[in-house]
């Protein structure tokens, strides 16, 4: 009998096992982890999507785990991405130190995510939430370098703030309802006072918002994504940040939906999501590091998802959940390909690497499908979610938001093109002549995901089916999107397969045509083959085309960039710390001063005893 604790214990004990394996068998950790992840993945899929209930009484607190349709959706995402991430790591991480530590925390993180989605009570939700936070923190600081530690601390600090907000919401709820059970709290929520409702919803939304990198709480994300090992980044961006979405879904539809101010919650979140999408895209455009670029892109995509959720219409939710799955897949693809490039070249800087297309064709293909999907070009999965999102926005008359989203989507092309161009196209530097394609264990996950994105784009019904069920859990929503309905505005019925076929054919034909036509015309030149106003550049000048790729755009959005949330928070942090510094001067180190404090305390207590204790001396 498969139940949730079985899955969780497989993951957690597996983590310990992987750590142990590393101590005794070389490469033991990676194989153990892969097997464990595969097995747990199998269990997740085998678990009935509505059931597997398990109750555990811990003293006065009862923990309940159960699989629901909603959690099944996220659990599958986690299980698949987790397995692929570990598979990818097997060769990616080969030869690195402390692999036991890496895989242990990886599996812990996966287990914690599964724990989160299966939790039916708030305590275990928070419990796993924190386990997820620290295990992912451990992976961010894995490299042991100064930079990764900075990123890690930043990540942890924001996560801690978020987590404690969630915790306070949980205890406020408990104080009112005397229960940690999700269902109980949802039931009683509408009966609580307005203040409580506002507090709980805003705390929860902010707390989950931190994890889903909602602006202005996103500042931890770029660096944390950049510093974590790529095998995990795929999971980090693809699945871990989705836990925030998972939570937001609960907040919006389980809690906020029962309040009078539901519409305000939705509007606020929608706008926050929209702004996130736009600003993050702008930031992504100006990045010169592949992983940071992808990180911002990831933030932007999560913005879309939040918009979709916040719209609250069936179509919006469906768009959001569909994008959740799709984003999990294509962002994992992109991070994996960036990781593959990193593995072979040792850098992810867009300014340094170029022209890898012939050396790493399959990686290029993955990246290509990835960016097509992000950009929302049919026939891949991204297109459908974008389409649904626009349609939902139109239906609910959010015209300004459409503009915002539209700007964001358009700007996305800039960075996406830069990503693929810088890494794979253009002239190849000499130092990259001997680059080889990555090993199969890394290609397999990338290819599988590519296939999935393609299939999901062509047969969206495959993914829409579990999503529809999940929506049923969130409320009485029904998933009823068919391409035909959309296109019926023009009085035509077209289905995805036809679009896919058409576009695919045109694409292949076009590629072949251009390929043949330009077969002779291409001339391979060195990047140094360039003259600037008659001057011959020196050897160490970086003249890759990708340098300052989007400079015009950067200039255009300069005013926005000046106002950086990150800087603002840093300033705040610094000021706070210097305040602390002054505060600790209370401890002067002079024993007599301390004695004076004691007497002072006595005097204060005596003089104000009337107002403090109600006893007049």
């Amino acid at each position, binding site marked *: 009998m498969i139940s949730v604790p079985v899955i969780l214990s497989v993951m957690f004990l597996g983590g310990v096992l992987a750590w142990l394996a590393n101590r005794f068998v070389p490469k033991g950790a990676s194989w153990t982890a892969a097997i464990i992840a595969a097995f747990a993945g199998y269990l997740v899929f085998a678990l009935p999507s509505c059931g597997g209930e398990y109750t555990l*009484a*811990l*003293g*006065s*607190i009862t923990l309940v785990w159960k699989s629901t349709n909603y959690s099944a959706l996220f659990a599958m995402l986690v299980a698949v991405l987790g397995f692929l991430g570990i598979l990818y790591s097997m060769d990616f991480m080969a030869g690195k130190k402390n692999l036991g530590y890496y895989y242990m925390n990886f599996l812990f993180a996966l287990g914690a995510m599964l724990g989160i989605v299966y939790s039916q009570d708030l*305590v275990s939700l*928070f*419990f*796993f939430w*924190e*386990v997820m936070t*620290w295990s992912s923190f451990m992976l961010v*600081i894995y*490299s*042991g*370098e100064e930079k990764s*530690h900075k990123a*890690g*601390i930043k990540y*942890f*600090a924001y996560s*801690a*703030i978020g987590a*404690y907000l969630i*915790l*306070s919401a949980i*205890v*406020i709820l*408990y*104080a009112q309802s005397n229960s940690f059970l999700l269902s109980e709290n949802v039931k009683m929520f509408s009966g609580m006072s307005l203040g409580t409702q506002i*507090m709980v919803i805003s705390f929860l939304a902010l707390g989950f918002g931190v994890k889903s990198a909602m602006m202005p709480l996103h500042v931890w994300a770029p660096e944390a994504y950049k510093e974590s090992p790529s095998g995990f980044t795929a999971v980090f961006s693809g699945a871990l940040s989705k836990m925030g979405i998972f939570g937001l879904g609960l907040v919006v539809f389980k809690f906020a939906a029962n309040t009078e101010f539901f519409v305000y919650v939705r509007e606020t979140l929608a706008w926050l999501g929209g702004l996130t999408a736009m600003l993050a895209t702008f930031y992504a455009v100006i990045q010169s590091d592949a992983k940071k670029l992808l990180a911002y892109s990831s933030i932007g995509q999560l913005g879309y998802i939040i918009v979709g959720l916040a719209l609250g219409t069936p179509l919006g939710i469906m768009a959001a959940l569909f994008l959740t799955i799709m984003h999990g897949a294509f962002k994992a693809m992109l991070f994996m390909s960036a990781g593959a490039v990193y593995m072979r070249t040792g850098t992810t800087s867009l300014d340094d690497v170029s022209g890898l297309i012939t050396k790493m064709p399959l990686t290029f293909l993955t990246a290509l499908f990835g960016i097509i999907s992000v950009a929302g070009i049919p026939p891949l999965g991204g297109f459908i979610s974008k389409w649904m999102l626009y349609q939902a926005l139109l239906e609910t008359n959010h015209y300004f938001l459409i503009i915002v989203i539209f700007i964001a989507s358009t700007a996305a092309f800039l960075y996406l093109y830069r990503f693929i161009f810088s890494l794979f196209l253009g002239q190849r530097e000499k130092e990259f002549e001997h680059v080889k394609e990555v090993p199969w264990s890394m290609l397999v996950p990338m290819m599988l995901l590519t296939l999935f994105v393609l299939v999901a784009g062509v047969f969206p019904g495959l993914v829409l089916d579990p999503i529809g069920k999940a929506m049923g859990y969130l409320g009485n929503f029904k998933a009823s999107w068919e391409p035909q309905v959309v296109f019926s505005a023009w009085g035509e019925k077209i289905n995805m397969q036809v679009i896919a076929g058409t576009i695919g054919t045109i694409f292949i034909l076009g590629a072949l045509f251009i390929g043949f036509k330009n077969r002779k015309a291409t001339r391979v030149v060195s990047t140094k083959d360039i003259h600037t106003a008659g001057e011959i550049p020196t050897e160490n000048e970086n003249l890759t085309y990708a340098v300052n790729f989007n400079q015009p755009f950067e200039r255009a959005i300069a005013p926005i960039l000046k106002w950086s949330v990150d800087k603002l928070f840093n300033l705040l942090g610094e000021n706070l*710390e210097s*305040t*602390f*510094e002054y*505060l*600790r001067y*209370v*401890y*002067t180190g002079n*024993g*007599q*001063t*301390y*004695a004076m*404090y*004691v*007497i*002072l*305390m*006595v005097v204060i*207590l*005596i003089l104000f*005893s009337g107002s*403090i*204790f*109600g*006893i*007049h*001396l």
Partner: protein
Amino acid sequence: MEFSPVLYIAIPLFAAFLIPLLGKVSKTLVKLTPGIVFLYLSYGSILLFPKAMEKPIVQVVAGFKPPFGISLYYGATAAFLITMVTIVGFVIWLYSYKFIIREPIEKYYMLFMMLITGSTGILLTGDMFNMFVFLEITSIAAYSLTAFLRDKDGAEAAFKYLLIGSFSSTFYLLSVMIIYSYTGTLNFADIAGKIDLIPPMAKGFVLVLVLVGMGIEAEMFPLNGWAPDAYSQAPSPVGAVFGGIVVKAGLYAMIRIVFLFFKTPEVMQFLIFMGILTLLIAEMAAMRQHQIKRMLAFSSIGQMGLVIIALGIGTMGSTSAALFQMFNHALIKSLLFFAAGYLVFHSGSKQIEDLEGLGYDKPVTSFFFAVGALAIIGLPPFSGFWSKLLILVSVAKAGDIAILLLILTGSVIEAIYYLRAVVKLYTRKEVPDNVRRTPISGLVAMGILAAIILYVGLYPGVIEKWLAPAANNLLNAADYIKAGLF
């Protein structure tokens, strides 16, 4: 012979008087004595535990009925805390076994044993003046142990501690005096019954004296200047005793007196206020520390603040949460001090900066430090999580969201500085080959603590079921009076 609570005091005293003679025979014998004593006492305390949980055991000394003789009150709260103290005491002894290599070893073990015994006495006694005596036993042992390393800073820290500690004992003695002069008795239960004989003004003065005097021991904010110095300069196991045991005893003394004699809403409000002040200022100061043990000291103060807040709320839930937090803090802070002790020893420097790279060089010790850090922040699956959760729940139930947010602010700060230290440990850096290793006894001590922390984190029910009687015993003054005077 049945185990009697008085043995908690008698056996260690006997052993302490015996140690100088044993020292003439063999040093190993001296080193083993406290371990045997604490092992036996933990065994006894576990035997006695269920009984005390059911019904307070009031043990008379010298055969005179209270209030005429001194009586020991071994109620559920005392049983809970003393069991914790003896077990933690045993583990700290285990750690000391190899850690203390400086002469005079026999004096160290005598003082160490008496430090813990004094704290036990504070928890155990049912007599106000007797508590003063135990307070002094604790203090004098603590002063001497703070200066045990005989370095410059140790003596300075000890002198400050002594200066402030004298104020504490003076104030406490004055309060005993005023109470005696009006009620004519020294037994807690008896005083509690006659407290109204004291005119309001004198009562207010006593309250001020007790709050300040015991506030010093419990490390309330403006009174805790001595604490960071003493914690950081004492040898690490002693730091663990301070943070894990001595403070708890001081706080228990204060809370016992306040709850028995002065339990008014205003006083409780005041406790909450002081708790918040203590928590926030200590956490802020801890964030800016450069020395690891000083940071632990401030964190310890902060945790005490948290406990004071929870006690100040004064509901059943919050009091049990506070006791749980005390228990967790004793274990976790000991673990942290243990690990920090060897880290400082290995790196040869007290600065956090210099810990770089030790995470790879001394993986096990560093791992225990990391576990302790995660646990004290209150991250699952460690025991610190549950107590923090229970405290927050009780705060929320009391309806004060502002306090809740302030506690969480403190927690965020705490999380940041602990992780900074942990991350420093795991910064890659070539460390000169260090042949010194953490001895097995130290690792076993840390391992025991870490195992308990993890076990309680996974099965909080083990501890939680005892919290209710313990909290009830602390809160319910009428029961105390009834049992104390039989």
